[in-house]
Structures are given as structure tokens and as C-alpha cells.
């Protein structure tokens, strides 16, 4: 059952990923991206990370991708850029480079599985934010960790978002 769900999700995620980068129309790309994110969220649920799954849907699918869609709609009113550039040359170089990365990744996977070294589960177990049974729910635990251990990074992240927001407004506004 678990394996079935995983393989189904993995196939769909990868398939949609490929469709994102191959779709001719940018709007279709965005659509596939949303579906991809939704499936990734389901994957998170199977990994018992409900909060992250919900955040994935809320922020990624419901927020960021809407932004993409907005921009695509504003921009794709004219013809697609690929039509007027010599894309084949660049694409060949790109594929070559991507092939190199793929080879590297395959090598890593092959090497790891050949040596049979599973991730060191023991090593990290002493680290403080360990899951303490089912005493606390996923959301609560995550909140606890975020606001204690990672309080400063969290605040930095919020500052980053603020800066990004201001930056985006400054960039996109026609006349301030």
C-alpha cells in the first residue's frame, strides 16, 4: 500500500515536472506546477508532515504560483519568446550540462546503494528537537521548535520576506 502510493505519487510528480518544463504555453506550465506542488503536499502527508503539507498548499500553490500565473498572464499576451530566438544551440548546451549533473547524481546514488550505508539514524538522535512520541502534534512541535531553537532564523526569514515585499513593490510599481 505504502509502496503503491509512493510510486504513484513519484510517477505523477516527475511526469508533471517534465510537463512543466516542456509545456509550450507558460500558462500550462504554471498549471502543471500547481498540480505538481499539490502532489508533493500529499507526499508530505504520507511522511507525516501535515503542517508542512498544508503550508506547501497554502503558500506555494495558493500564493507563489498565483503570483507566477499573474505575471504569465501579464506577459504572455504577446508571443512566446522561444519563437524568435535561436533556441536550439542553447538547448543543446543546456542538455549537455544537465546530462553531466545527471551522471553525477546517478554516480552518487549508485555509490551509496553499493556501499549500503543508510543514513546514520543514530547520530542525529541526540539533537534536541527529537520527536517525543505522540505527546505533541506535528504542528505544535514544529511551532515549538521554530519559536525556540530557530527563533532568530525565523525572525531573519520574516525580515527577508519584508525586504522582498518592499523590493517587489519598488520594482514593479510604475511610478512611485
Amino acid at each position: 500500500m505504502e509502496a503503491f502510493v509512493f510510486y504513484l505519487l513519484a510517477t505523477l510528480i516527475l511526469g508533471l515536472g517534465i510537463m512543466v518544463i516542456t509545456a509550450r504555453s507558460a500558462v500550462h506550465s504554471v498549471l502543471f506546477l500547481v498540480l505538481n506542488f499539490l502532489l508533493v503536499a500529499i507526499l508530505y502527508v504520507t511522511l507525516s508532515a501535515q503542517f508542512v503539507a498544508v503550508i506547501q498548499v497554502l503558500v506555494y500553490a495558493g500564493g507563489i504560483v498565483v503570483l507566477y500565473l499573474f505575471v504569465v498572464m501579464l506577459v504572455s499576451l504577446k508571443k512566446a519568446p522561444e519563437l524568435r530566438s535561436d533556441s536550439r544551440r542553447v538547448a543543446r548546451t543546456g542538455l549537455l550540462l544537465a546530462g553531466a549533473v545527471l551522471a553525477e547524481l546517478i554516480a552518487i546514488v549508485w555509490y551509496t546503494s553499493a556501499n549500503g550505508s543508510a543514513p546514520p539514524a543514530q547520530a542525529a538522535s541526540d539533537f534536541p528537537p527529537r520527536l517525543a512520541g505522540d505527546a505533541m502534534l506535528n504542528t505544535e512541535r514544529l511551532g515549538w521548535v521554530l519559536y525556540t531553537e530557530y527563533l532568530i532564523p525565523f525572525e531573519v526569514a520574516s525580515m527577508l520576506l519584508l525586504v522582498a515585499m518592499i523590493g517587489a513593490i519598488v520594482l514593479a510599481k510604475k511610478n512611485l
Partner: protein
Amino acid sequence: MLDTFVIPLLQIAVLVNALLVTVTFLVLMERKVMGWAQARLGPMRVGPYGILQAIVDPIKLILKEDITPANADRFVFTLAPIMSLVPALVVFSVIPFGPEQPYYIADINVGLLFIISVTSIGVYGIILGGWSSNSKYPLLASLRASAQLISYEIAVVMTLVSVVLTAGTLNMIGIVEAQREAGLWFAFVQPVACVLVFIGGLAETNRLPFDLPEAETELTGGFHTEYSGMRFSLFFLAEYANIIVISAIVALMFFGGWMRPFPNVEALAFLDLIPGWVWFCGKIFFFLYLFVWIRATFPRYRYDQLMAIGWKVLIPIAIGNLVLTGIAKVVL
């Protein structure tokens, strides 16, 4: 097997069918109530007092020709109504009609977050529907809609957070139970939040006075101008399903869900003779009526006024409410 598949499937079947029937009768109710508010009768021809209109309307919609505009993006054009309806239906999976099985389909710990995140997907249907029609009015409307939905979502979510703070849980059943423990509906504990969520809900479901994305007198019908037949009826269904969702959320979070009024007052115990889900449906019905009533009363906001209200009024109030709730939580 029975518990994991058959019963949930049955529940889903019952709920979806009940929902669709409710939507058709909700449309009838809207037309009737609007009629009475406007010194006319509403539908009267089909069946006694026009009751069968609820059945005839969907049949008419389904039988109508399904037109795809020339140069429309066919794939997206078909997908958009589906993308708008599915989230509206999915939300119901976590809305409890009672505290125990079989009154809910799923009881998940992040219930409220789930509702918020799934409803946020609904905006795609509107944007894509407007874009793929290849027509300017729907495009304008979908730009309006997406901006409106996203901005009001911020206010609503922030307000809901303050309710979560009060209840101490994201679980929908937990929130209702917290109201039992408090002995008070959260409408009395969080009156500001209650009003904010309802107003935000009006905006998120594109209802008057916030119905700019489908303002027929400005944008000739908005994002679904070019839609007809079955695909239009999907949009229609999604809109009304969303109205029911908002009503259900308000009823659950502020009006005690399936509980009778004043759940801790023993003198009113006779009210428990009415089953919980009837109470819940009655509360939902009240808010549905409120939606229609408001529609019959108010003019429509302008786009910039709408945004100003969202950003300059609702969000600051929501933040203020949140901060006050936090302080109260710490002090008390």
C-alpha cells in the same frame, strides 16, 4: 477495508449529493428571498410556489449548448471550472456535522489550516477561466478576482488565527469543543473576529457588495462571461458551494457548530432533543439567508474601495484583534 474505504466513500457520496441538492435549493431560496425583498414573487411557475424550479434550473443548464470561444485555450478553458469546483467540495471532507462518526469524513489535526489552504486553490479556477476565455471582460474580472481573493484571504486567515489562539487547537471538532468548555460561543468571545470572517467570506465568495469579479453591470458577468452549459454550471456550483463552506466555517468557529445555544445552561437541555446536525444545518441556513439578505440590500463597491477596505481596514483590525487575543491569552 470497510472502515478505510467503504464508509468514507459512502459518506462522500452522501455529502456530495446532499451538497448539490442544497445548492439547487439554495438558488431557489435566493431567488425567492430576493423576490420577497424586492416586492415580487420570485419563481412561481414550476410546481407549487415554484419549488420545482430548483430541479428545472440545473436541467436547463446541463442541456444548454456548451460553447468554447474561438481561440480559447481549450484545455485550460475546460479545466478552469473543475479547478474551481473541486476545492469547494474537498473542503467538506473536514467539516464536522457532529462530534463523532459518521458525522464527519476526516478528523485531521490541521483541519482549519486544511480548509484555508484548499480554499486558496479555488482562485485558480477563476483566474484560468478568465484568462482562457480569450476575452477582455473575463480577463479584467479574473485579475480583479485574484487580487481580491488573495488580499481578503490574508485578513480572514489572520482573524482565524486569533480564534485558534482562543481555542488552542486547529482541529475543527476541537474548536467546537473549546466553545463547550468556555460555555460561550466564540461569537461572544471574539465578536470582531466573527464579523471580520463573515465580511471576508462575502468577499471570498464574490458576493455583493464585493461581487466585482462577476459584476454583470460592469464586466458583463465577469470571469464566466464566455462560459455556458455544463461548464458554467460547474462555476455556479462552485460559487454556491463556497458560500455554504463560509457559512459552515462561521457556524463552526463562532456559533458552536452542532451545539445548541448556551450548551452549559442546564435549563435549556430540552433543546438537545433536536439532533446536533440539525442545529448545525440550521445555523448554516441562517448565514445563507444573511448572504442573500445582504445581496438584496447593498450596492457594489468599486475595485479600489474594495482593496482599500481589505488592506487598510480589515487587515489592521485583524492584526489588532490578533495582538489583543495574544495579550489576553498571556494575561488570563
